[in-house]
């Protein structure tokens, strides 16, 4: 039982953390960022290189967040800002960005980095060892969701960005600088991807293709979650976490993976707006009824 719980925590954290940056960018800006994996990879590189250079891990992670955030801002100013509202063109451009980033990192740092060791060691429960750091990742994922919730509900930026998300034109007419909001959003999404990369860097092999492993789970989580970057991932992370843990434990890793994709396909067919669409529908009913 502890085992299953631990696995669920692992899966949940991985789904949430891999999706969160993508969810913010897709939900707020309707931009499908195919370079999401490479942003995560960049975060992992910054954290690993900084730690190797003697900077404490915590500080290195912070450095990743800031670094990838700034990188995201630059990418947005140079490229994405010209494509607001052009969802499909953004697919092509971000694919181009991912090619450049992956090969650029390969040229700069070679095909692989020396990895870090997972900090914090493990705890023993019922004669079985569990990595403390991974439990901490689960906690981080939840804290991150709460922080984002606060950011988007309690701050002016949050208010404006939600307005821009629902109706950009009206938001503009009310004096909201939507372009600045989008820039900020993209940069926050990038920073979150950086954080994910940095957090997972000490637990995985770091290479230019590091981001590839995050792409599928992140897309599935966002698809199942729907547009709302807060409600969506938390619900879909929960449901998908249970599904993949269950399938994984009963039939093995292959079915765990296939299960995620099949759930995603069914969800799009049955409720294209995902869990956030469902929640919005329910909340409307509740408030009116």
């Amino acid at each position, binding site marked *: 039982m502890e085992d299953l719980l631990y696995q669920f925590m692992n899966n949940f954290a991985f789904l949430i953390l891999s999706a969160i940056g993508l969810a913010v960018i897709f939900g707020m800006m309707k931009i499908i960022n195919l370079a999401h994996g490479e942003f995560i990879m960049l975060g992992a590189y910054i954290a690993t290189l900084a730690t190797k250079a003697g900077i404490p891990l915590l500080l290195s992670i912070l450095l990743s967040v800031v670094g990838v955030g700034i990188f995201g801002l630059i990418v947005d100013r140079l490229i994405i800002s010209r494509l607001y509202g052009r969802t499909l063109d953004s697919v092509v451009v971000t694919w181009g960005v991912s090619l450049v980033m992956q090969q650029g990192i390969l040229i700069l740092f070679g*095909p692989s980095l020396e*990895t870090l060791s997972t900090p914090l060691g*493990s705890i023993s429960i019922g004669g079985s060892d569990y990595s403390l750091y*991974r439990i901490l990742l689960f906690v981080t994922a939840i804290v991150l969701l709460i922080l984002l919730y606060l950011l988007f509900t309690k701050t002016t930026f949050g208010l404006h960005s939600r307005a821009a998300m629902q109706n950009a034109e009206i938001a503009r007419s009310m004096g909201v600088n939507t372009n600045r909001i989008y820039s900020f959003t993209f940069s926050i999404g990038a920073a979150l991807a950086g954080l994910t990369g940095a957090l997972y860097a000490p*637990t995985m092999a770091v290479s230019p293709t590091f981001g590839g492993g995050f792409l599928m789970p992140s897309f599935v989580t966002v698809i199942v979650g729907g547009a709302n970057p807060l409600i969506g991932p938390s619900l879909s992370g929960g449901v998908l976490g249970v599904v993949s843990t269950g399938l994984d434990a009963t039939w093995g*890793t292959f079915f765990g993976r296939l299960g995620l994709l099949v759930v995603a396909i069914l969800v799009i067919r049955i409720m294209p707006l995902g869990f956030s669409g469902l929640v919005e529908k329910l909340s409307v009913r509740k408030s009116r009824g």
Partner: protein
Amino acid sequence: MNNRKKRKSLSLLLVFVLVLAGILSGCGKSSGSNDDSKTIKLGVLEDRSGDFSLVGIQKYHAAQLAVEEINKQGGLLGKKVQMVAPDTQSDNKRYQEMAKRLILQDKVAAIMGAFSSASREAIRPIMDQNKMLYFYNNQYEGGVADNMTFNTGAIPEHQMVPLIQYMIKKFGPRVYTIAADYNFGQISAQWVKKTVEANGGKLVNEEFIPLGVSQFSSTISRIKKAKPDVLVTLLVGQDQSSFYEQWSKSGDKSIPMASTVNMAQAYEHKRFAAPALANMYVTATFMEELDQKYPSAKKFVDKFYKKFPNDKYVGMEAESEYTGIMLWAKAVKKAKSTDTDKVIKALESGISYDGPAGPVTIDPKTHHAIRNVYLVHTDAKQKVHIDTEWKDVKPDWLSKEKNVDLTKKQEAKQYTPLK
């Protein structure tokens, strides 16, 4: 107005240039190839970008080193060897395009290369169709019986059989296998099973992990429940290698790991922080660390780093690539020609090259290599210790169990122990 016109004519110019470029690319290169040139062209297909570049670049560098040495010693048949090496980008489609290009346009004498089995299977039929001599200088799951193909890397007879025998004897009979869920993993796992059964062991479980999976909590929990004496890991790719770090934190490090894929190829023991790779036993045909004990290895390692000081490791695939090219050169000299049939005959004469890892001899019946195998293990600090050495291990499964004899019978297929 004027400005607009300018822009228009500019775009027209662009169209013109594009069309011209297309035409030129078609005609320009075909006139370049010439059979009587002063060079012998050697095709090398290795991945210098993408998923497999970690090993691909090592192999590419080893090929450069080998060709440079051959040319320093006067080349072949009085001609210089010229290496033609496109980047295959870890992309199977690209392998096919480039293999055809090397054969039909560059008219190379032989082709070296490919890392993954999928890449090899993509180009092997092209080699057969075009009667092109092909060296697959890589460790793999074994079983390719093909007149045009030679393999200088390690196969299960070299690595798996001695490794499993050793582990069962030393640690106990209960074996747990986790393997990448594709051909290499499936077939290698079959070899594990076969060897375990033949040596009185018991296979507790075998688990296949899809490529690209990087999170292992459920697998780790299953292994811990099964409590095996030996854990065989046949994981492939950067994603799957994340297993070791996760195992070291929540697994049972007292269980020894055995592997044929780790350390010697992608130097995980140097890239991963200890103790992720601690307590691992590996059989290999070459490793950089052999230089502690063997002068030939030291010579090769020194040469390699002299030419590529920024490289991080010289592994067994680099050695195979280097040895493969040297064997080919030796065969060309012996045949006094680059004619494919003559070179194959020379190779099938039991030709041998005394390379960095000891003598490597081509087994005529199977086109695989008879070579030395080394067993090493890591301590808690991931330092490598050389435990044993088996001399002149024969690649004889094909010839013994499948009656393959390429000197007598034409073949172009891959046998597997699956059926």
